[in-house]
């Protein structure tokens, strides 16, 4: 009996210490990173209860184990067996039924918390998201603008209608908690209500190929006034870019070209566009060509026709179908990158 009392006290002390320790590490009551969406509130609430339960169950198993190892260890020279106890049906039933009870409670809490994250605001703003290897594009259909950064107003629900042009990707902003895969051939929805201003990042969290690690984009949560200012600015830029190179730039943003082709000269999954036009390009078959209109057009429409030396063969670039005018606009844009 004394053993049970001591172990009982030790279990409680260990459980509390474990929980306090985890809480101090920032993974219990206030889960890191900061919670920045209305949806994350019920997730963090459930998580905290789970940490409490984990701390208790951890102590409940480990404390009697360690206690037995110390107190009931075999004494030197004692070769006899221990007391013959085969089992105890009442105990077995207890530790089947009580956990079942706890599981039912967590099943309820889990379903409740999931329901909270799915709450629909009928007035939610629609933003179209396009994911492609290895970039994100955000389209605001109300205003006809396209951006490589996601700007969101605070305290308003937005619904992201997400599509992928190639493989499966996943939309995850750790501060928002919620994660949703984007499957080619269908539109998946993602509802979020930002509640904290700040600069976050959406990070693709479903392995999508070579540069998966770098498939990130800025997510900027601002006040409504700042958001509206940004929208107005983007609308003005879109209106001003009726030139071929302006149209070309919009096309490259829409199609996420900069996910693989840098604009600053660094080598990414594909060759940089900086200073590309008119330069001598070395191919992997050893020959050299001049990057003129014909070469760039062929490279866009048939990525596998030629491979630039040092880049993967066969090419990982998906084939695009552009009209002749669109290709000409893109080339006009590339010409400006010197």
């Amino acid at each position, binding site marked *: 009996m004394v053993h049970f009392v001591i172990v009982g006290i030790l279990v409680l002390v260990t459980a509390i210490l474990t929980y306090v320790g985890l809480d101090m590490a920032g993974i219990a009551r206030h889960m*890191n990173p900061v919670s920045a969406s209305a949806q994350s509130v019920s*997730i963090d609430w*459930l*998580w905290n209860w*789970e940490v409490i339960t*984990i701390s208790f*169950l951890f102590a409940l*198993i*480990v404390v009697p*184990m360690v206690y*037995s190892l110390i107190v*009931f*260890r*075999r*004494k030197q020279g004692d*070769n006899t*067996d*221990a*007391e*013959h*106890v*085969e*089992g*105890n049906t009442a105990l*077995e039933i207890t*530790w*089947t039924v009580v*956990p*079942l009870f706890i*599981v039912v409670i967590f*099943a309820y809490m*889990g*379903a409740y918390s999931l329901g*909270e*994250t799915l709450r629909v605001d009928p007035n939610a703003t629609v933003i179209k998201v396009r994911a492609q290897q290895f970039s994100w594009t955000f389209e605001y259909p109300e205003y006809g603008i396209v951006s490589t950064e996601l700007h969101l107003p605070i305290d308003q629900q937005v619904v992201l209608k997400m599509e992928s042009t190639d*493989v*499966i990707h*996943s939309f995850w902003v*750790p501060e928002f*908690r*919620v*994660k*949703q*895969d*984007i*499957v*080619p*051939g*269908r539109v998946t929805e993602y509802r979020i209500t930002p509640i904290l201003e700040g600069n976050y*990042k959406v*990070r*693709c*969290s479903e*392995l*999508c*190929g*070579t540069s*998966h*690690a770098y498939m990130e984009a800025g997510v900027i949560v601002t006040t409504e006034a700042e958001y509206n200012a940004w929208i107005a600015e983007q609308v003005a830029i879109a209106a001003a870019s009726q030139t071929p190179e302006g149209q070309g730039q919009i096309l490259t943003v829409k199609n996420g070209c900069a996910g693989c082709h840098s604009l600053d000269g660094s080598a990414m*999954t594909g060759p940089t566009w900086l200073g590309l036009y008119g330069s001598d390009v070395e191919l992997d078959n050893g020959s050299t060509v001049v990057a003129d209109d014909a070469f760039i057009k062929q490279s866009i429409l048939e990525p596998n026709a030629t491979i630039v030396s040092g880049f993967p063969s066969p090419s990982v670039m998906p084939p695009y179908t552009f009209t002749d005018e669109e290709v000409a606009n893109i080339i006009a844009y590339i010409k400006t990158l010197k």
Partner: protein
Amino acid sequence: MKKFVSSALLKGLLWQFIGILVGGGIVEIFRVILPDSEPFGPFGFSEPAWVLGGFLSAIFFLVGTGVTGDWIKWARGIDTPEHHEEHYSGWEKYVNVSLDHKVIGIQYTIVALALISIGGLFALIFRTELAASGLQFLVTDMKLFGQNGPQLYNTLMSLHGMIMIVSILLGISGIINYVVPLLLGAQDMAFPRMNAFSFWIAVPAAVLLLMSLFLGGFDTGWTAYPPLSAKAPVGMQMFFLGVFVAGWSSILGALNVIVTVVRMRAKGMNAMRMPIFVWAAVATSIIAMTATQLIGLSFQLVMFQRLLGMGFFDPAKGGNPVLFQHLFWFYSHPAVYVFILPGLGVISELLPVFARKPLFGYRWIAMSSLGIALVGFLVWAHHMFTSGMNEYLRVPFMYSTLLVAIPTGVKFFSWVATLWKGKISTPTPMLFVLGGIVVFLLGGLTGPPNATVSTDLHLHDTYFIVGHFHDTIFGGFVFPFFAALYYWFPKATGRRMNETLGKIHFWLMTPSFFVLTFGMMYIGLLGMRRRIADYDPALGFDSTHLVLTVAGYLIATSVLIFIYNFFNSIKNGEKAEGNVWNSRSPEWQVPSPMPMHNYDQPFEVVGEPYDYGLEGSKYVEFAAPVADKHK
């Protein structure tokens, strides 16, 4: 040396090479003749040629080793003796075809250890790359086996997963093959030829898997989700083939175990008097025998999509990428119970021996293994909470997943009750048993947050999951596997492994492992995604990752110490021919090493297996007194 050159293993490998040339050659001839097809690819053969070559290579390997020899003779009407005399002695037994379950068990174990070393080496390579943010040596402008740095990272990371899975499957087969017939009092497995076949087919499977590294690799992770896997280099196909072939080993091996347990138990051994490990072996075999087909099938569908343009998972052709995930996880979730149930069986089997007390609640533990196996079939879609499958489907899968906690909890409570008021000693096998319980507990406790959908939306595809499943696999397989090797090593060799080295192994590996998985879970919560070659330095993970890398190297060091101890003790270990652990189990009632056809006299079960402390009780009684009885 000459003996090695003429061994079945080397003959098989030579024939496997010929098989690739023959299969690939046939396809290439057609492609040269037929118009509109490009005959060769970036790796010599074209993709279809590699696939047929790889497929034939496995068949050629098996015929080359001679493991199918008796069947071919029977088909031609030639009789063969029921038992083969052992032609080989010493190490030669293990590189040639043997029908003895003990030899096959050791063959499985050695190959499992080899694969663990290879898979571990891959992990060290990419763990080193992760030690700091930015790309260190797997850089974009390097090129190896047709892959640049990040591609190679993905290949190594993906292969680490699958190589380890195969090594676990072979590891459990090793222990089950060696131990189960001994525990049952059987002379061998029910189907000795199929048993040998199950082992030998795993060798070409491992070769195919490793070949994928040299054929452009693949960047999909072990899960191989299409459409990404439909676009990956030709290495992807070798991966599919390797898994497909390895699956045969699992299915046939499991069938053999079930028949052996049903048909070949000693007199008096009714179901509730079987050693508890046998229950675990049966539970695991039921899953392996009935679920493995699904992973083979799902990979085969992608293979056909690539080769023949069948759009099973191609949305442009009306296919559905999410369907693949259902098929894949229908095996791959139950598979994790295949990995852990035998390990939990080892824990239950060894605890009473070292606590000198009966196993607390034998029936409950036996039934909990079956319970886990059955519930395990109903939870697969909890891997798909974010996948875009029907939103409402997520709730029933959350409920079924949480149910797994119940039978698992029964095991933990029963283990603690077994230890309570025991007379506990802690030689190396017991240390690994205890370590296994604690590590598996951490894996188990970090499971429910992934089961409740809303928290999983945050945790899915992060390092939290990576930490969680490494805990379950180390606690459920790696620790018990080492415990089993230290424990049954004297039975197989007549010598025991060095205790001091064993303890160094344990005390080096266990704390390092805690640091590794706790660190993984911690940064996972903070936003570290899984399967990335590089991470944003702004996240501030650099120092944690460095610690994780150091922990990884310490684990590798401890395993090296084990491997040295293992091979050194075969020759130089302290002699241990008697009942070293003072166990009641039948295999320890006869001298070690175990003779060729196991027990000279059959035994009868006359009591309960774990009645330690019950005066005058015995588990088994031999028909005639055993000549050389050790205490």
